[in-house]
């Protein structure tokens, strides 16, 4: 499995600054490169520009929400297979189901933020990126 080489780039799309910052600090300390966006519009733009290795996506956000951004991303030729972890607090089994329908469920997973500790989130990110400690 890969080590963190050439620094894996992670995009955090999250409108809550506290969560965004806490996560960013933690990921930086793990040695990742982090880009941040605070709404879906910005998130989609950064994603398509930087082609990050993984997108951490919130669902309920101002301007363009996470699901809309996700659908637009999947419409892009690169974005179609971009790995995404949906990190949300929305009660949204219906929305998740909708997201699943967008396609390629193996490139996407769903985490309820309250259900995982920071440690747990980092572990899932690493697993997604096939990284061992």
């Amino acid at each position, binding site marked *: 499995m890969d080590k963190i080489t050439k620094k894996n780039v992670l995009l955090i799309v999250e409108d*809550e600054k*506290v*969560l965004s910052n*806490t*996560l960013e*600090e*933690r990921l930086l300390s793990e040695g990742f490169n982090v880009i941040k966006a605070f709404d879906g519009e910005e998130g989609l733009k950064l994603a398509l520009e930087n082609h990050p290795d993984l997108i951490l996506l919130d669902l*309920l956000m101002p301007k363009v929400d996470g699901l809309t951004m996700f659908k637009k991303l999947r419409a892009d030729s690169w974005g179609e297979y971009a790995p995404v972890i949906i990190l*949300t*607090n*929305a*009660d*949204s*089994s*219906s929305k998740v*189901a909708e997201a699943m329908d967008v396609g390629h469920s193996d490139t996407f997973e769903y985490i*309820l*933020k*309250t259900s995982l*500790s*920071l*440690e747990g*989130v980092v572990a899932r990110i690493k697993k997604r990126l096939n990284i061992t400690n």
Partner: protein
Amino acid sequence: MENTNKKKYYNKSALRIALIYILISALWIIFSDRLLLTNPDTILFLSTLKGWVYTIVIGIFFYFLINRELNRRNQIENNLIDIKNKYYVLIDLAADGIMLGSHDGIITDVNRYLCDMVGLKKEDIIGKEIKHFPFTKESIDKNPLRFDLLNKGEIVDSEREIINSLGSKLIVEMRTRMMPDGTYQSIYRDITNRKNVEEKLEESEKKYHELIENSPDAIIVYDTEGKILFINKETLFLMNATKKEELIGKSVMQFVHPDSKALVIERMSKSLKEKIDLPIAEEKFIKIDGSSIKAEVKSMPIKFNGKLAVQVIIRDITDREKASNFLKLVVNSIPDFIFWKDRNSIFLGSNEAFAKVAGLQSSEDIIGKTDYDLNWKKEESDAFIADDRRVMESNTAKYHIIEPQLQAGGKQAWLETSKVPLHDDEGQVVGILGSYMDITERINIEEKLEESEEKFRRLFESAKDSILLLDVDTGEITDSNPFIQDLLEYSAKELIGKKIFEISPFRDIIENKEKFNELIKKNYIRYDNLDILSKTGKIKYVEFVLNVYTVGDKKVVQCNIRDLTEKRELEESKVGFLSIASHQLRTPLSMTKWVLDALLKEKGLTVFQKSKLNDLVYSNERLINLVEDLLNVSMIETGKLIVNKKLIDLGKLINDLVASLKSLADKKKKNIKIINLPNLKEVYCDPILINESLENLLTNAFVYAKEDSKDITISVEDREDDYLISIHNEGYIDDSSSEKINLFDKFSRGANSSVIEPTGSGLGLFITKKMVEASGGTIWFTSNIESGTNFYLTIVKNKLKE
């Protein structure tokens, strides 16, 4: 023939011989005296006297001696004559014809019987040649006497046909032998009658055989040992045999069904011992092919080939039995009560239903009983019997008589009875057939109908639903309640008499008559969400239910229209509230959670700081759990719980879940053991709901298991229709308290749970149950002090998907 007179040899002969002897002796004495004259007179005299005496004594002696001998001869001869005379009498009187002939074949004598037999006089026969006897042209001696044999001393028997002088044909049996004196004696016996009888017998025997052979009944003859001696054609057919040898010579018991063996043995010995015909009995037999038949059997002792045997006549009643069983089945299947009685109202039979209400075990018990022996009151029985009499005497059937009856168990019933007189072949009334229905229910219903009609009217008027009643054929509105008038802003006048598809609010739903008819055919139609427009154009959000039911013999359509407008508004706000609440509540909680995580990761924290931070983590977790539970409950209650089934590897799901719970288990000093995991590679279920349900049950097990017990087990059983997952712990749920608590109810908690886990929300099992049930499964538990607690949940198999 003539008697020969007895010859008498009188004593005279002996006397004569004696006298002659004396005379000779005297002559000799006289002459000898004269010749000799030698002696003096005295001596001469004395010697002469001596000689005389001497001579007389010897003469007397001779006389007696000879006389005796002659007497004896005389007697023998007389006896002989006696015998001869008797013989002649015998011959003359004999019932057989007797003929004597000389050695050269001439008839010397015949008896009277033979004369009568041939119609000739004795004189006409004697002196003729034997071989021409009886001297009629037609009598041709087909087998002349075998003199050669006779001469050898043999007795010759022959049978011959002779025509007597009167022209009658006779059959005679003739026995001839040579007598010691070289004469012949023949005895003729007239066997014409016997021959005729024999012939007739033969004929009738043939007929009898024919009859038996072609009898439609099977006939078997067996000997005293039970060995089959004879069978007829029908027996072959009955026993399914092809050859008589398959049965003849075998033991009859071999073909008797075990059920009937005792009976057959008993009847056989009775028939042989008492030599009487036995009445008909039902016996079972086994055919050659092993199948069994039921038959009616009559047996009688007979002589067969001169020996005692038993003849059995067997009639196959399997078909009859079948037919009668079928009829019985029919009679017993009819829900009506059926009985039949004789001319005197004595029961001859009934169906089972009737026997049951009469208080009897079975319909067989009713035979011979009268109504007085049955459950009903005396007065009722009087009435029934009087009724029977009327029907039988008038010889007219009575249909649908309604009468009360007291049934077994004291139940008062109302009956609708029909009684029909039964006739014999001559048209005479011999009994009565009755059937009745229990119409108690109907009578009760009729009584209640008026009442319910009124109730219905009240309900109809006051209903919260809008109701329209339609005529099923035309779709015409026949009635409407006030509520619909409010809802649609139409007056009753505007609705009644119109066809439903002419009213604008329903125009879209029921566009035309065809569609309406199609709806009616289904009997029940329901639209959960329907927007309809009122007369003034207001949108009404309604539930529309159309029911077709029968009133009397007419079909009616009832449309219930429930206004859901308010309810929908309320629900929409609820859904909005929920999704906002879930996000808004979770966001600060997740922030706190992550920030605390980040803080705890810091180096250089004091033990005190760490402990306080952990307290915060714990408190935050509790809040998160509570919020999760509440959100779940809200979701469930608003019907927003979404089931998303797919094929998953349930085994992997369970393994992953157990692995993820390991740290929590370690903390509680528990160990989850997976004890039975069949192949679960493709199980059709909602992984999120199953995962959450199992997690709830496992974490519950951590908390409520006995403190000193370590193992919590989870196992899966692959059953026919579902997978059964069971989770076991050593704890005990005390539900013996007076208030029965359903653990699966919202906010309910076991009697001892608030002591063990004061922070529980009381929502976990409620949510779990709802999730399991939403997936089509069931959940339950068992608990006792000894074996602990088992929670079970099932995942239904989808036959199409698997």
